[in-house]
Every structure is written in C-alpha cells, then in structure tokens.
C-alpha cells in the first residue's frame, strides 16, 4: 500500500482510521518497530513483583528479579506456547507453565524441563528461556520496549519530550512517581490514532466541564443567575484554550506532541496552585521540594507540575497528574488505561488530592474523558462515509514557527500535533512497508 498518498501536509484520508488491513500493517510497522511505552517500574516495585503488559498483540510479563532488575518477557512458553503467567499482577520467583511443567525464573531463564531425558538435546537455558523483548530501556521509571533488535536509543527517540516527563517526576521531592494507586481501564469504539493532543476542542468537547467550572465560580461569588455570570464569563480552563490564549502547541518530532499551558498555570498560580500549598500538608510538601531542589525553584516546579500535556508516539500520554497508555485492539476499538501518578515522599494528603482531582476528569464515569471517547466514536461513525474522504488538519498550518532543534510551535488551538502525528505515521508506515517488500523480494 502506498501510505504516503494517504497523508497530505494538512489532510489525511479516512481509510487510515477505518481499513483493517492498514491496522494490521500498523501493528507490524509501528508497534513492531518503534519504542513503545509498556509500563512504569513502580508497578513492579519489589523483587519478584510482576505485572502483565503488552506491545501490540504480544502478551508480556514485566517482572523485577531478585537483583532488582526489570525484565520484559514474552508471556509464551518456549515449549507449546501457552502463557506461563496468568494473574494480572503478583509476586513470584518463578513462572511455571501449567500444561507440561516447564519452569522459568522471574528473569526468564529456563530452569526446569520435566522428564528431560526424552530429548536428543535437552532444552537449555541459553536458547530456550522466555523470549525477552529485544530492547528495553527505562527513562525515570517509564519502561519502554522495542520489538526491533536495532534502532535509535530511547534518549534519541524521546528527544525534547523527556522534559515533560521531567516536569512530572521533578514534582516529587525524591524524584520518583508511583503508579501504585490502581488504574482505570476504559475503551472506545474508534481508531487509536483519533486520540491525541488537541488544544482546539476543550471549549466545545468539554463544554460540560467549562459549565461546571463557571457554576463553581458562580457559587463561590454567590452570583444568582447565569446572566450575571456572563459578565464574569472568562475563567481559567476555557481561557487557556481561547483563540487569543498565550498557550501553544508543539510538534517535537518522532510524532511526539505537546500542549504548552505554562502561561495559564503561571498566571493562575495565586488562585489555583498556591492555595494547595497553604494547608499543613501543602506547606510540608513545599518544604520538601525546597529541601530537594532549592527554595527558588519551588514555584517553577509547582507550575510545571500542572503543565505536562504530552503525547509520546505512539501510545503514551502524560497529562498533568495522569499517565495514559493506549492499546490498539482493532481498527475500531482502542483501550485507554489511565493511571494517576502519585508523588513519592510527600504527605498523604497531597496524593489524595491528586487522586480525587484525577477522578473528576479521567475515567469511564468522569466528567472529562468520557466526552472525549464519545467524540472518537462519533468520528469513527462519520468516517464510514468516504464520499468526501479527506479529514482536515489545516488549522494554523500557515503560522507554525520552527525552533532551532526542529520543534514546530503553533497556537494552542492549531492542529500542529495532528499534523505531526500523521507525518510520523506516514514516515513509519512507508519505511516499514518498503523494508517489508525488500525482505520479501530477497527471499
């Protein structure tokens, strides 16, 4: 398939979101080759801890061995291919296949084959251990895997997007976040590429949230009616995404994209952030931050902690306090797993406030992301018509600014992220299919 023809500079053909053959190719050419976010090392915190994960359709075990090292192992017995680990998470020194009793250590090493004498050459640990994901690297607790044996290292891959991970992690006084409060597993009937950084939609897609925030302001000021509130209409959430907002979008390369909302949080510091550090727990949190990073940096850290709003292509999003992993299940079915990220080494109240704030906007019963999912499903239904098949991503195409490192910057409402993601998609799919054809013809 000629993938370059399906993506124009400011348009994309809707078959990219609806054609099952393209979805199969994505599993090979994107999820089978690039770095993919798998999980966070705090999910397997202690020696022996493990948790089930995946890359594309590959079932994985993310385990921590007795030496504290994290492993990504394919959950498939080297004998007859049954999964060797069944529980979603747990703690074990061994994984034993229940079918014929082959046993592996939690680092994947084959340590036991039942009745081994019947083999001409008994299966050996060197060749028949659980297959590791070919490459694994960890950046500040975020575990990435790649099914390709060769390629750029994780640091090159992440590029400037690392700074957004830093913004989250640096807001812990110990420099660690923990995804230990559980996960919300949600899904929508739509393509995985429909989700992304979009600073154009909040005032429309999240109108109900805007309404709730206005209602809060109204209740706080004891304003009786909607019309009185109209005079006082502008407020933080909606302002940040207005046509005249100072916030920005960014295409960081590699399909990584970002909404830059620093200006909103900085100007709202006194009203939105500072009150949180006025409580006893908040004062203690600020003191711990000052102790770790210096008192001059506390305000900047607290502002930046609200700012991460990044999509790391193809399947990770970090939005303020939450970490989202996308699982492409079918061309029209996507699972979205949302973890609230807790700070290590802070008073309990700080993390509980993060959890309760998370539940307000994120999850299947929330006031925020449920409306996003609805939009993705509406798009998927709309795209069943292909009389006019081109999806328009042209907003702000004429006003992008390029930074020295190649980052493209646009206005918060511009479709810079959408164009960036589709450009990377076309690059990966074109490279994958041409490599595939080359291999096929040489055989």
């Amino acid at each position, binding site marked *: 398939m000629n993938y370059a023809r399906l993506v124009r500079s400011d348009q994309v053909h809707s078959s990219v979101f609806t054609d099952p053959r393209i979805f199969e190719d994505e599993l090979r050419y994107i999820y089978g080759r690039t770095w993919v976010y798998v999980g966070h090392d705090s999910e397997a915190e202690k020696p022996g801890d493990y948790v089930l994960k995946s890359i594309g359709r590959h079932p994985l075990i993310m385990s921590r061995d007795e030496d504290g090292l994290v492993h990504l192992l394919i959950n498939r017995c080297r004998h007859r291919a049954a999964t060797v680990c069944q529980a979603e998470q747990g703690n074990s020194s061994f994984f034993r296949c229940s079918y014929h009793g082959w046993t592996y250590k939690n680092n994947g090493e084959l340590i036991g084959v039942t009745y081994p004498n019947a083999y001409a050459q008994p299966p050996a640990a060197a060749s028949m251990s659980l297959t590791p994901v070919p490459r694994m690297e960890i950046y500040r607790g975020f575990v990435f895997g790649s099914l390709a044996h060769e390629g750029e290292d994780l640091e090159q891959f992440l590029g400037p997007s690392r700074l957004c991970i830093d913004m989250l992690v640096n807001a812990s006084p110990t420099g660690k976040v923990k995804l230990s409060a559980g996960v919300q597993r949600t899904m929508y009937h739509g393509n995985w590429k429909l989700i992304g950084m979009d600073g154009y939609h909040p005032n429309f897609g999240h109108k109900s949230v805007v*309404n*709730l925030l206005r209602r809060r302001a109204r209740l706080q000021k004891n304003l009786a009616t909607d019309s009185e509130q109209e005079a006082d209409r502008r407020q933080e959430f909606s302002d940040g995404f207005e046509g005249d907002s100072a916030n920005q979008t960014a295409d960081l390369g590699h399909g990584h994209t970002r909404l830059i909302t620093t200006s909103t949080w900085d100007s709202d510091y006194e009203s939105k952030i500072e009150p949180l550090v006025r409580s006893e727990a908040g004062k203690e949190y600020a003191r711990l931050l000052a102790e770790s990073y210096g008192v001059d940096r506390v305000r900047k850290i607290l502002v930046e902690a609200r700012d991460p709003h990044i999509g790391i292509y193809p399947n990770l999003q970090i939005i303020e306090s939450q970490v989202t992993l996308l699982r492409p299940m079918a061309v029209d079915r996507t699972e979205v797993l949302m973890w609230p990220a807790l700070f290590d080494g802070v008073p*309990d109240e700080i993390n509980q406030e993060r959890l*309760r704030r998370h539940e307000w906007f994120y999850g299947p019963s929330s006031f925020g992301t449920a409306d996003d999912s609805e939009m993705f499903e509406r798009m998927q239904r709309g795209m069943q018509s292909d009389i006019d098949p081109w999806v328009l991503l042209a907003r702000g195409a004429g006003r992008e600014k390029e930074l020295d490192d190649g980052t493209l910057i646009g206005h918060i409402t511009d479709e810079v992220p959408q164009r960036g993601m589709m450009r990377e998609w076309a690059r990966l799919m074109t490279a994958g299919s041409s490599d595939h054809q080359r291999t096929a013809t040489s055989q």
Partner: protein
Amino acid sequence: MGPTDDRGKLRSPENGDVAVTSTLNADLAALLSERSVTRFVYREARLIDDRQLEDWLDLWTDDACYWVPADETNGGLHRVQLVLDDRDRLGERVYRLTHADAHSQEPYSRTTHLITGVEVGEPDNDQVEVHAALALVEVRRGVQEIYAGRIRYRLRVVDGELKFAEKFVRLSRNDAVLGNLTFVI
C-alpha cells in the same frame, strides 16, 4: 465488604452500641423499618431510571458519599475510584447530567436498576445499613450493557426523613475494561 478507612467505616450492629436501640422513638423505628427502608431503596432506583436526578439529589445527606471502586483491593481512599462523590461532586454530577453538553450522555442511557435481595440491618440509633444485589441494564444507541454487583447503603434519618449517607457499589466488572459509565449507577 468495602474499604475500612474513616470515610467508609461502618458502625455495624455487631460492634455498635446495642443499648441505644431501645431508646429509639416510634417514628424513628418506623422510618428505619424494613418496609420503609426497602421502599426508599426502590424509590432511589426508580428516580435514577426515570431521570429525575434533581429529586434523586435530594435523597442524600450533606456528608453523603457515593462510591464505586475501580477494583477489589479495598484500598480505600489510596486507590483510584470509578466514582467517589461527596455532596458537592454529586451536585456537579447531577448538574452535568441535567444540562446540555454532556456529550457522553447525548443520547442518554436508558437504565433499569434491578434491586433485589434487600437485607436491612438492625438500626443503630438513627442509622441503618442495607445490603442488596444489583443488576443494571443500560441501553444507549440501541446497545444493551449489563452491570451486576453488590450495593451497601447507609441510611440516616435527618429532620424526620430517610437519607442516603452512603451508597457503595461493588460492580463485578469494576476492574475490567469499561466503556461509557457516565450515567448514574
């Protein structure tokens, strides 16, 4: 069943002060009777299914807790929840669902709450704990979903009326991959 931290802690008849039972006046006893409590629980389900959510909101105490956990760990407030509404957030939920622009409820979910196996505990002063089984059938855009689970209610008499102080819903599917759960459970 359920978390054991402060917010969810229950004064069950076993460890509560049994002596107060005898001091209940007749009105309180009538309100907390099995018949009265059961009717109240059924009425709550009907108000949700009839989408009379403003009336539904009136059923709650000021310190209400509407709680739907996202797993079976009983980790209480230290875990992420599907729903954990205090009275303010409950008010926001109802406001969102009764005003325009809650897109995930356009079209809205038609729900039928089947409440059965209602077990009314012994009153503890002005409160009573109730257990029930739930089968919730939801239809949206012609697609039917079924959610089953157990409910624990805590009812309290406030100014001569029954109110919900807590509704804790343990859905069997709570840790599964879930779609649109923006209706009232």
